[in-house]
């Protein structure tokens, strides 16, 4: 029996699928994006702006590399000792009046949250942007159970009202431009005369939400960090919608992945310095909130934390994969990725797109889905260079690629796949000198028919045409290297005599 299957909505052909179990493989999923110039323009524009701001503020920080090293060390230490720090967090949070729940998977987390909402008699709930809730597909589940969730982050409102899905983990509506936002708001908020000025659009969102903040008594948030030492939760935001949700309601539910813990409060001095700079190119985001359990007279008087595993504990065993969980969700990797820049986030078929998504999603799916994602990269390493906690994403990508290949090999799948066939033939040829020389000889003769006067091959037939469709290939030189080397040695020796 799977609750997940029960509440999975009928796929809407106009809505991107961000569930790795149902999404198209990456090479197929990118096709509609590549044919959508407006979307690509929106993504490229937004990314160029963030990248430029980030670069300026990172250059300004003379100790940036030292901060990265400390960030990586703190997060590694945390993950290696995760059980101890989780227990410490649980104890401190409980002492401070919080209720800590544990959820092994998405299904359990959804049910724990629904049980709390039922206890509160909640039919509506306000939400701070949380990718973890998108990971467990909380909103459609709550809707089916009769609880309407109001997203309150501007980007999330755009997506919720536009019946769209997030394409970025920090700026989820980055693929939507101002006139598209205007159209969505005008239609869904009934504002016929709304202009497409971002100020007017922002003001419309403020008005739309104000009464909801003041009247809906239950809220759901994610967490940027949990502090083991104090049992505190930290939420980082810009708009103030977060502060509204975690201050005004009577009851607060925080959903957090088990890897979100930091050992001590002081660790924030590293994380807060690198997070906003990496994420939005700000020295510090406008609002950072920290709270500890329940404070009499200030904020929600009932507070729950749901600690979510959902595949994370499986990633802890080996260092290569474990580093994935160091992630603090700044999105610098996707902003720097040449592949993401062209495809945007929806093609990744997961709420976690870009390079971090390419390594996180398949692992969260225990390598049963999203197997094409580790290949959605050029391995250029830009993501590793910008990562504030030094996750070696290319290294993890390669490891996951080999896992996918071994898995397919074991299953005997793709035995006749042209790529695998080609690689097996190459293996045969490259391991025997005589075969290699013969193949070279044949290739030299064969390719001569396709090499033009300028020394370049502009088009090849059949499968080779896929290469020459978009690029030229240099023709083979008249003499292979080993022949040239042998000749050079001969003539060199003669000259010496």
């Amino acid at each position, binding site marked *: 029996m799977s609750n997940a299957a029960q509440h999975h909505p009928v796929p809407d052909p106009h809505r991107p699928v961000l569930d790795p179990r149902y999404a198209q493989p990456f090479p197929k999923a990118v096709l509609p994006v590549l044919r959508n110039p407006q979307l690509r323009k929106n993504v490229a*524009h937004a990314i160029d*702006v963030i990248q430029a701001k980030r670069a300026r503020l990172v250059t300004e920080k003379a*100790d940036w590399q*030292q*901060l990265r*090293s*400390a960030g990586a060390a703190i997060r590694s*230490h945390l993950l*290696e*000792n995760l*059980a*101890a720090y*989780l227990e410490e967090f649980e104890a401190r949070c409980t002492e*401070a009046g919080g209720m800590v*729940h544990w959820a*092994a998977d998405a299904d359990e987390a959804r049910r724990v949250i629904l049980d709390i909402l039922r206890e509160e008699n909640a039919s509506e709930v306000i939400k701070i942007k949380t990718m973890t809730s998108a990971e467990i597909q909380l909103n459609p589940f709550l809707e089916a159970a009769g609880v309407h969730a109001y997203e309150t*982050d*501007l980007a999330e409102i755009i997506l919720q009202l536009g019946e769209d899905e997030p394409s970025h983990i920090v*700026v989820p*509506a*980055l693929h939507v*431009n101002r006139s598209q*936002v205007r159209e969505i708001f005008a239609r869904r908020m009934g504002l016929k005369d709304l202009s497409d000025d*971002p100020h007017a659009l*922002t003001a419309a969102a*403020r008005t739309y939400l*104000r009464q909801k903040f*003041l009247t809906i008594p239950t809220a759901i948030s994610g967490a940027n960090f949990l502090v083991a030492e*104090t049992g*505190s939760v930290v939420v980082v935001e*810009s*708009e*103030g919608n977060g*502060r*509204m949700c975690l*201050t005004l309601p009577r009851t607060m539910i925080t959903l957090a992945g*088990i890897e979100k813990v930091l*050992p001590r*409060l002081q660790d*924030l*001095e*590293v994380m807060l*310095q690198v997070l906003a700079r990496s994420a939005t190119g700000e*020295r*510090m*985001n*406008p*609002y*950072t*909130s*920290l709270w500890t359990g329940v*404070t009499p*007279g*200030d*904020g929600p008087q009932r507070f729950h934390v749901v*600690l979510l*595993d959902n595949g994370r504990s*499986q990633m*802890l*065993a080996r260092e290569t994969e474990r580093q994935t969980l160091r992630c603090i969700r700044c999105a610098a990797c996707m902003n720097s990725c040449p592949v993401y820049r062209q495809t945007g986030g929806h093609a990744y078929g997961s709420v976690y797109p870009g390079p971090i998504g390419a390594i996180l999603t398949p692992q969260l799916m225990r390598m049963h889905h999203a197997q094409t994602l580790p290949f959605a990269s050029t391995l250029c390493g830009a993501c590793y260079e910008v990562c504030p906690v030094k996750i070696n994403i290319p290294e993890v990508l390669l490891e996951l690629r080999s896992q996918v290949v071994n898995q397919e090999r074991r299953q005997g799948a793709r035995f006749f796949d042209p790529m695998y066939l080609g690689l097996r033939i190459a293996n045969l040829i490259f391991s025997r000198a005589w075969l290699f020389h013969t193949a070279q000889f044949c290739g030299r003769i064969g390719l001569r028919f396709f090499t033009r006067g300028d020394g370049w091959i502009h088009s090849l037939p059949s499968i080779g045409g896929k290469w020459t469709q978009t690029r030229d290939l240099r023709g083979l030189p008249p003499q292979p290297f080993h022949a040239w080397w042998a000749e050079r040695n001969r003539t060199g020796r003669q000259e010496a005599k």
Partner: protein
Amino acid sequence: MSATVSTRRQILDRIRAATQSVAKAPDELAGAYTALPRSYVRRGGLTQQARLALLIERLREYDAEVVECGPDQLPAVIAAQLDESRKRIFVAPPGLPSTWLAPGFHWKIDHDLPAAEIEKAEGVVTAASCAIADSGTIVLHHSAGEGRRVLTLLPDWHLCILYASQVVETLPEYFSRCRRPPTLATYISGPSATADIEMTRIKGVHGPRFLHVILVDDLGAPTILN
């Protein structure tokens, strides 16, 4: 509840099994933590004047208004700021000095005011715990002079009074000043903002759209932090 208890056991067991080769023994954990490399800048090198200048520059860069004054001028400067705001109804936390509550305005003191009452106020005046020059950040620990969290959230206009002795240069300096960890904290860096539409920074979404800071020159006077 029993389902959750066994889930807890199950998750912790899985984590322990996966990390058994790297996890430290309980008595070695603190030592391993202390040994983590921290070669980043802990303490800034600016003079007091340069530190204050940096704070002002960074606050202004993110659209906060800053004025400076001496301790004796403070009540008059507060009154002038309130006057300039063209607002009449203000809320204040119960712990503010009475001299800060300028006459001629309608003051509501927050003795557990309902949110709807605070929402009706046009502005709020508070003290602060600390400020960080490097990032232009104001720190509230929500003590009696800083008010409950809701107080600095609903009104559209926030006037924050900050003493020069409360200003540190770097974020690590702030954390080393926290002798007791705060149970509540809000770090404010400029007024509420968003860049969700085409990465255009728009000032003021849900939090106060206007942030004013009075920086009081009390050099040599004792800090009121913690």
